């Protein structure tokens, strides 16, 4: 209770488990084998990360999936709480991927080339990518 006014502190604590569905499952499973998978719409060519099983623009199922190289370019970055978040344009994808980024091979600036650094132990989670590092040159 604050000095002058009363309040009650309470928690809302509820466990969730989000069903990934076929396309996102394929993406997460790809991470266990160090692969970044995108979906490709046969009509408009949109390459989604995480992949889509249905294209909302063309209103048709998506059945083609591709493995990306994993490299990309930094679209933007922002550091807070001792960590730097990067918005990454992956080569061969249209969606951007947000992840942690580290300068390493060069400074963090828009356009810097980046590549994923993989965790030794992987469990079909986005955290299987430890972070993206700026590549040299």
């Amino acid at each position, binding site marked *: 209770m604050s000095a*002058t*006014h009363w309040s009650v502190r309470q928690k809302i604590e509820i466990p969730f488990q989000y069903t990934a569905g076929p396309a996102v499952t394929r*993406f997460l499973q790809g991470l266990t084998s160090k692969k970044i998978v995108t979906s490709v719409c046969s009509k408009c060519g949109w390459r989604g990360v995480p992949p889509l099983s249905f294209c909302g623009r063309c209103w048709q199922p998506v059945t083609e999936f591709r493995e990306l190289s994993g490299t990309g370019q930094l*679209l933007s*970055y922002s550091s807070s709480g001792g960590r730097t978040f990067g918005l990454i344009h992956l080569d061969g994808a249209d*969606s951007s991927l*947000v992840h942690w980024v580290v300068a390493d091979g060069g400074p963090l600036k828009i356009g810097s080339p980046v590549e994923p650094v993989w965790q030794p132990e992987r469990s079909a*989670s*986005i*955290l299987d990518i430890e972070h993206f590092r700026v590549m040299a040159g």
Partner: protein
Amino acid sequence: MSTGVAIVGAVQTRYEAKKAHQTYNELVYEVVSELLKRTGVPMQEIESMVTASQDFWDGKTISSMSVSEVVGGYLKSEAKVASDGIQALIYGAARILAGAFEYTLVVAHCKESEGQGQKITAVMFDPYCQRPLGVIAPTAAALQARAYMNAAGIGTETLAQVSQKNHRHAMKNPLALRVGDYKIEQILSAAVYADPLTELMAAPTSDGACALLLANPEKAKTFGSRVVWISGMGNSTDAYWTDRDLAQSVALAQAAKRAYQMAGVGAKDIDIAEISARCAHEELLYGEALGLWARKDVAKVAASENGGKVNPSGGAITGNPATVAGLTRVAEAYLQLSDAAGAHQVPGASVALAHGADGICGQTQSVVILRRSEA
């Protein structure tokens, strides 16, 4: 041209960092009771209410239940929009245009101080690939800010100028939370909100509520100069934040086009624009999409007082809570066109634009065009 729906009154609370003295029904009763007093319309004559609030901000499933009684909803038609209050206003107008109700009360409330803002915004993010990283709304806004600065070729000084202008305007707005004649250097060196945005380039945590009364043309006749007509409305939904170019708002450009078409006006006819920008870069980005200025001119726009026609109220950056910020813009546009804006009144305006957005990096965009009545 009028759509046939008028605003006849608008009331806001003072926006404060923490309204520890009020629970939700008291907060909302404050604005609704004042609105009924100012308009002279008793609750018995109002059958339709549209509210806007968010379960995660209120820490309650069905957040509208807390205010059902104080908005006069007992045995009446209240519905809750789970998005920015400007959407509740558009839905309220639709109810009147459908001929179903003579009046509609529109109310938005939020107490950001009661929840943990960071954690609350985290649940807007993709649960598979984004939430595990700890991404929260300030991070996404900062990523957008840097992308926009890069695309528009501007630096943080330009953002500081936008913030300076708004906080100066707020000095004439008694309801504004954060007010001050800040120096550019002060804004640039303020604590980090989320790099590159400093705390003075982003809205502080705030509590507040806002209520408007809509009326059909027949009822509006009795309100004389306090009548302001809704002459255009537009809304659009953008792609998810990681599936679009964050440096522009295609959805806002489309929402504005729809509203301009309905109102029979263009961007050049807008005398006052209240843009719902809780971060400095959003005002410039959204102003582009609204056709108020071109990207190549944003540095000049930020440096000029722009005739004081953008956010005379000080805007959302001075502290308007989520879900309320857009309805606050409509309220401020109404006050300008009914000559009730007091110290921050801009003389001679006849067409005003109010904008609202919600979701990550403004994924849902709404525009309302108001016109002074010729009475």
